[in-house]
Structure formats: structure tokens, C-alpha cells
């Protein structure tokens, strides 16, 4: 919830002339509002400075092998692109969430998620992102993305997700 609110504020601050299009004073904020240049709608997935672009085009997550927190070459490439984006967009901080699949005990998986989140964070730092813009959290096996109990789902659940929020870091 808090993240959503922050993102809305971020969209407002980043948009050149963020304005309300909600109509009859209902306070709604249109993320696509503003004076986009060259046909790019600010805040949309084709705005390279948008959260949606980060999620969809840069890629906001890296996946891990069973019980591993070692980054794959693909994961490193994704994180390098994330670092590049974060460098180009200094108005954001990131919370790196570590997750595990359900094949493990609850508390071990919390610790494993912590390892994965930190592996991703460390890589972002190695690519030039300031440490004070990054925080980590583990959800262990508490927040699976996919709910089936086979490897097809498990492989998507063993992940570290970089979640953006507005701000310059602490």
C-alpha cells in the first residue's frame, strides 16, 4: 500500500506537468498525464524513466536454482541493466525482496530469502548503485508468485525482486 502511494507521488514529481485529469474533483491521478515528448506517454511502459518500463523492459526480478543464492549469468545481466536504470534515474530507491519456494522450512527459507536479496543488492552495488539507495527484505516462502506445487511454479518463486520507490536514499 505504502509503495503504491509513493509511486503515485513519484509519478507526479517526475512528470513535467503532472496534473489532475480525474474530472469532477475526485482527486484521481492519471499516471499517464503530462506533456510527453515524441509520442511517449510518461509513466507508461514505453517511457524509459517509468516504473512500468523498469518492471517490463529492464526486468525487475532474477531467479535462483534450488537452495541457491548464486546469481546466474542471466540474473547478472538483468541486475546490470537495473543498475544502469537506477543510475539514470536517481530519484528512486529500491527494496530488494528475497523469496523462496515452498520446499523448505519456514525460518530457513526466511534466511535463504535474505541471502538472495543480498546477492542481488551486492551485485547492484558492484555495478555502481549507491548502497544507501538499496534495502533488502525477505519473505521466505510467504509470498509465492505462482501457487502450483511443481517445479514450473517453484522456479518462478525462487526470486529476488527489485521494487522501486520514490526518494533519494538514506
Amino acid at each position, binding site marked *: 500500500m*505504502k509503495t503504491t502511494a509513493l509511486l503515485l507521488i513519484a509519478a507526479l514529481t517526475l512528470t513535467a506537468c503532472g496534473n489532475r485529469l480525474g474530472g469532477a474533483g475526485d482527486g484521481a491521478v492519471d499516471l499517464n498525464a503530462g506533456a510527453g515528448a515524441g509520442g511517449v506517454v510518461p509513466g507508461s511502459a514505453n517511457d524509459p524513466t517509468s516504473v512500468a518500463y523498469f518492471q517490463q523492459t529492464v526486468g525487475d526480478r532474477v531467479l535462483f536454482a534450488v*537452495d541457491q*543464492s548464486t546469481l546466474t549469468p542471466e540474473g547478472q545481466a538483468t541486475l546490470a541493466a537495473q543498475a544502469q536504470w537506477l543510475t539514470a534515474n536517481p530519484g528512486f530507491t529500491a527494496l530488494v525482496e528475497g523469496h523462496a519456494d*515452498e*520446499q*523448505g*522450512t*519456514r*525460518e*530457513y527459507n*526466511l*534466511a*535463504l530469502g*535474505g*541471502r538472495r*536479496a*543480498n*546477492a542481488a*543488492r*551486492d551485485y547492484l552495488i558492484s555495478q555502481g548503485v549507491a548502497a544507501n539507495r538499496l*534495502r*533488502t*527484505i*525477505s*519473505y*521466505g516462502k*510467504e*509470498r*509465492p*508468485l*505462482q*501457487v*502450483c*506445487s511443481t517445479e514450473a511454479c517453484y522456479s518462478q518463486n525462487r526470486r529476488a525482486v527489485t521494487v522501486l520507490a520514490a526518494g533519494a536514499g538514506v
Partner: protein
Amino acid sequence: MKRLATAAVLAASVLAGPLGSPAAAQLRITITDPTLSPMPFAVPTFVARNAEAGELAQDITRVIAADLANTGLFREIPRENHVGRITSFEAPIQFSDWKAINTQALITGSVLVEGDGRIVVQFRLFDVVSEQPLGEGLQFVGTQDGWRRMAHKVADAAYSRITGEGPYFDSRVVFVSEQGPKDARQKRLGVMDYDGANVQYLTSSDAIVLAPRFSPNGDKIIYTGYESGFPKVTLIDVASLQKQTVGGVDQNMSFAPRFSPDGGRVVYSAEVAGNTDLYLLDIASGATTRLTTAPSIETAPSFSPDGSQLVFESDRSGAPQLYVMPAGGGEGTRISFGEGRYGTPVWSPRNDYIAFTKQNAGRFHIGVMRTDGSEERLLTGAFLDEGPTWAPNGRVVMFTRETAGAAGAPALYTVDITGRNLQRAATPAAASDPSWGPLLP
């Protein structure tokens, strides 16, 4: 949230005038006997000493019967098969009536509601074969809302006298109540009587809560809570529901807290820069000691009953295994050597076993081993069993069993130390992470 009411058993006393020589009774169950067959018992409805006690007498009798029958060690002879009728608690027992239906243990009792609303429950236990009482008659006085507790006290006395094991029915369990879809599960802390009655919720579902543990005297619960947005060791007072973060305040993530047996210290895990280690917090002074420093994961600690040692889970060997070390820190000794991955060790209050979760060949098991790791024995096996907790007498284990797939959900189960009598525990909703509290006073 409202304060929790406390059902009270105010006094227990021995009744005068045993009707025979207790020493002569032979009634005995050895729960580790592999050839054990359930002992037939009868518990005729307790005698109501006044009209107000009528319904209570029936309710109390049913709870006693359920406690004993659910152990799997006893088999109730249905009331419709009874030949004898107990109409006076003081009258001599006609043992022939009970022998005729092959009764071995007979429980008789009475219930009185006093003018001030307090209730008085009296009971006696008889060995029908030798026609002798087993132990003295007992009397419990308590508040009316504590009637279930008095029934559990009676059943506890009967269970202990016949098995020689400690009592455990008059106890509570803290657990995590779960609602909602698997990818957005809402969790809140609940406490209930060991048999699922009297459920009360301690937290709202706004934040994830995990793996609660009772303090040794049951007045507080410590757990991992996301109330701040990050997992933190959190202490909640059971009566006032006041919460505070107590461990790992300055650390990125703190979790897996457990009380020391004296209640004065908490051992927990904290994650710093990706590395999870064990820490010890002195509650009174707030002083924290780091117990492990390895780059591996150290978590799921559990104190030995004398407080001198800790068993915990570590992947320092490459996969999670169980280790024992002094409670002040130091070299850990590995105790698990079987195939598979071991986790969530819990030291028995009797100091004879450590219960654990084992993951092997795609299945999860609850098992027990001696405190040096010998005599490993698996009690259960399923898609996902985890997180054992000991009954106060160290003879029954409760744990979480979660079913597979998108509609999978957790439930609480119990199994006895021999692996017999696997049963689902009653909870109003899906439930996980049980922790058995102390025997109530």
C-alpha cells in the same frame, strides 16, 4: 482489541475416605509398548448435585471422555452399553456391572454449582478388575467459564495415574490462523485450548506473523512479525495484547525467537548483509550477545530444558543439519547424519528427545532423535510436514501439515512419540506454526 478473559481453576484438593487400598490397583498403560491396545474405560455422566449443575455435568463428562479417547491409548465404552448407573458419587461401586461390559478403568464424578456461581467438580478413578480406587479422589473448584479446564484436570489425573506420564490436557496452544489465497495469505496469531476450544485472536491480519512461542509461564508470546514492514522479533503480552519489538532492533531482519526455560532470555536469528546468525538477548538488560559468526545460515534454535545448551539448524556443511552448542555460544556439534535435510529442532521438555523436520526425496517428515542424534525415528511423512512442538509432558508432538497445489492449505496435526495416533487438531480455519504452552496451574 479486548483483553482476554482467564478461565480459572482456583483450588484442587484430595477427597477424604478412599474406598479401598490404592496400592493394590494394577491399571497400567505403557505408552511406548508397541503391542498396546486401547484400554476400555467408562465415564458415566457425572452426578449433578443441584439442578444448575445438570448441563455442566454432561458437558464436563464429554470433555473428559474426548481427552482420553483422543490419545488413542483408551477406548470409551459407549454410555448406551452401560449396565450400571451412578446416581450417587458417594455410594459404593457395583463393580460387577462394569466388569460385565469389560470396563478396565471407571471414572466417576460429581458437579455442584455454588451460590456464588463457582463450580465444584469431584472425581474418582477405579481399577475395575481389582475393584480398587487408583489414587485418591480429587476436588477442583473454579469459575464457571473454567469448566473445560476442570474437565481437562480430571482427564489429566486419570491419564497420569494410568500411564505414569505427565499431564498435558489442561494447556493452550498458540498458532498462526490463515485465510485467503496462497499468494496473498493473511495471517494472525491465535491461542486455543489444546483441543481447539476457546480460540482467541491476538493480532489483526494486517501484518505477516510467523512461528510464535509461549513464554515458559504462558503470559507472553514471542514471534516474527512484519508490523514495521520488515520481519522483527516481537513480544506480545497475552493479557494486555501490548506489543513491542525486542530483538534485532538495529539489524536488517530478526526472526525465529525462542524463550530460555527461565523466561529471562531470548535466542533468535538476525540477518546482516545476507548472513543469518544466532543472537542471545537478555530481556531485562536488553544486552545482546552474538552466538555464531559463520558465513552459513544459523537459525531455528531451541534451548535444552536446563537452559545450558542450544540445538539449532545450520547449513555450514552445505545443507541444513542439526547442531548442539553451549547456550553461551561456542563450537557446535553436529548431531544429524541421516540422508536429507534437517530443520526446526525442538528439545523435549523431558530432555529425552529432540523433535525435528526432515526433508528427503521430495517428502517432509516429523521425526525424533536422542539429544546426541542417535535413535532417529520418523513419526510422519507427507507432502509438507514441518515445525514440531512438544506437549508439556513430552509424549505428544503437534506440527503443521500443508497440502499441495493452488488450493493447498495448512492444518495442525498431533502424533504421539511412537508415531501412533496421527490426528488432525480442530481449528476454525487453516492453521500453521503451533507452539504448545505450559501445563496450566
